[in-house]
């Protein structure tokens, strides 16, 4: 049977368990390469669990189904996290995670549309996802398609002027079918985002740009569920922003405690340690 999956119908597995599965798969992919953006993946796992297993509508066997909610990964380097979610959602086969980042893999380090089922756009040149999302949201409205467009971006991308062009454009066109998720882990290549080019007060900025804006603890499942529900339910003719304050490396305390970096160092013997920490804390 073809299933128009409301993600909530997928199973009775808890969202906390889904997030755990995403974290575990991301760490396994990191181990393949001996490195990866695992800090970001661990931090954003809860956001992805709520997106793919609570909020979004899609068909696992047909990732390009016209009625699906679109999920844009503007932050291409977060692909390791999205692959984990796509595997968990049944869109990608689990065994493929062992090819992560290798030659000719469908799972390159940076997410690209031509490579991976379920990867809507080629991200990685930061600051482009939201603008593409504006066009897709306009297109969906023109087609009278009720799907939502979700754009996942990072706090670093707030520095790009293109982000604010897109923000202004989305509000001008009253794109109430566009939901922008900002993963605020306060970390970018050279250091803490707030010390590179400070975007605060961030919620006030998005509100001033004409967006329905919420700011939540991005590692608090109940808060995320409430925020995603509100973003879809409000009737304001405005685009919706959900600023998610997340903790890099969330769920693996010895990595959480490490001096934070864009590219968190994980020693060869630490991948299995990280998995052991996760395994000792598996939610039901």
């Amino acid at each position, binding site marked *: 049977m073809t299933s128009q999956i409301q993600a909530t119908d997928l199973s009775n597995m808890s969202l906390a368990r889904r997030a755990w599965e995403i974290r575990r798969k991301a760490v396994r992919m990191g181990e393949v390469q001996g490195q990866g953006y695992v800090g970001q993946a661990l931090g954003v796992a809860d956001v992805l669990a709520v997106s793919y297993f609570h909020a979004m509508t899609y068909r696992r066997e047909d990732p390009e189904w016209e009625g699906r909610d679109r999920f844009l990964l503007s932050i291409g380097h977060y692909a390791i996290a999205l692959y984990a979610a796509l595997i968990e959602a049944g869109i990608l086969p689990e065994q493929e995670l062992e090819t992560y980042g290798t*030659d000719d893999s469908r799972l390159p380090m940076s997410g690209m549309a031509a490579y991976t089922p379920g990867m809507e756009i080629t991200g990685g040149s930061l600051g482009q996802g939201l603008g593409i999302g504006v066009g897709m949201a306009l297109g969906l409205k023109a087609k009278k398609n009720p799907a939502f467009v979700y754009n996942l971006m990072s706090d670093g991308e707030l520095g790009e002027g293109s982000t604010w062009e897109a923000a202004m454009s989305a509000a001008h066109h009253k794109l109430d079918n566009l939901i922008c998720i900002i993963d605020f882990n306060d970390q970018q290549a*050279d250091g803490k985002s707030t010390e590179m080019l400070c975007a605060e007060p961030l919620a006030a900025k998005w509100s001033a740009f004409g967006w329905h804006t919420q700011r939540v603890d991005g590692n608090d499942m109940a808060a995320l569920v409430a925020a995603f529900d509100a973003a879809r339910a409000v009737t304001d003719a405005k685009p919706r922003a959900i600023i998610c304050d997340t903790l890099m490396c969330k769920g693996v305390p010895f990595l959480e405690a490490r001096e934070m970096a864009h590219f968190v160092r994980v020693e060869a013997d630490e991948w299995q340690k990280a998995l052991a920490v996760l395994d000792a804390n598996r939610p039901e």
Partner: protein
Amino acid sequence: MSTNRNYDPHRKWQPRTPPKSGEAVRTSAMIASLAAEGYETVSAPFGHALVAEAKRNDKIVGLTADLAKYTDLHIFAEAFPERFYQMGMAEQVMFSAAAGLAREGFLPFATTYAVFASRRAYDFIAMAIAEENLPVKIVCALPGLTTGYGPSHQATEDLAIFRGLPNLTIIDPCDAIDVAEAVPAMAAHDGPVYMRLLRGKVPSVIHKHCPDYKFEIGKAKLLRDGTDALVISSGFMTMRALDAAVEMEKDGLSIGVLHCPTIKPLDTATILSEAGKGGRLVVTAENHTRVGGLGEAVAGTLLVNGVTPTFRMIGLPDQFLDAGALPSLHERYGISTAAMIRQIRGWL
């Protein structure tokens, strides 16, 4: 209708088999060794050269768009924190601000990745910097195919983009010596410069083959002579050409190498003189698409001046390149030393 217009049936939807246990895997995390074994490396030659130059010239300032650590500018930032501006992930305002600093009498060195300078900030560089002929030095890591990360970070067409810009001097250094010697030359040059950066541990190659070599803006240098073919190269392809020449000499082939680190203005006199000697194949070699880079610049110069040797080009194909391990990609796209040797042999 597929939403993915660059849909590739050979890649997409075809599940990949995981590598067998114990099988050697090549991943995009591999740091490519640009040089063959046996060359020494120099750590962060750009950062250290800039610090040395900044001690002599207090007008030098540094700017970056969230990539100090990845362009070796952190060395300068640590030495001169009060002369360093972290602009955040905002390349457009970084180049506009560099123009503003230059207008106030400073000598800005602004760093990012080559893709972001050439693609994102082009109009800002064109109008705020080049049109005004301001002495802003644009120094960009990851030129051409120097990362396996995929097209978002592979600046395979940066030279083509920038060659069309009046006033802009373009430098494509080969090794640590070139990078280090280019810094004072750029500072002394009264105008905007774009330099492709080799970062981190950079091999020192040319002096091993040619101890008297010195970098000069606008000069091509004959590093070795040869009677069967002349390779005109820039960037790390000069390393490849030197290694290829040594290897082919074992088979009795005599390959010359003309290193041409300044892409613009091109050293037409030297190129015409060397290519015009006749009796040998002329091959250009560049870490760049064959569209609009060194190869076409040389070809145009030769044809306009009526110098017409047998002429071939080595460079990247006109396509968005794969992600993967850099050694695999250099081989796949014909810019490894082995691939260079195969191509030249085929043409001789």
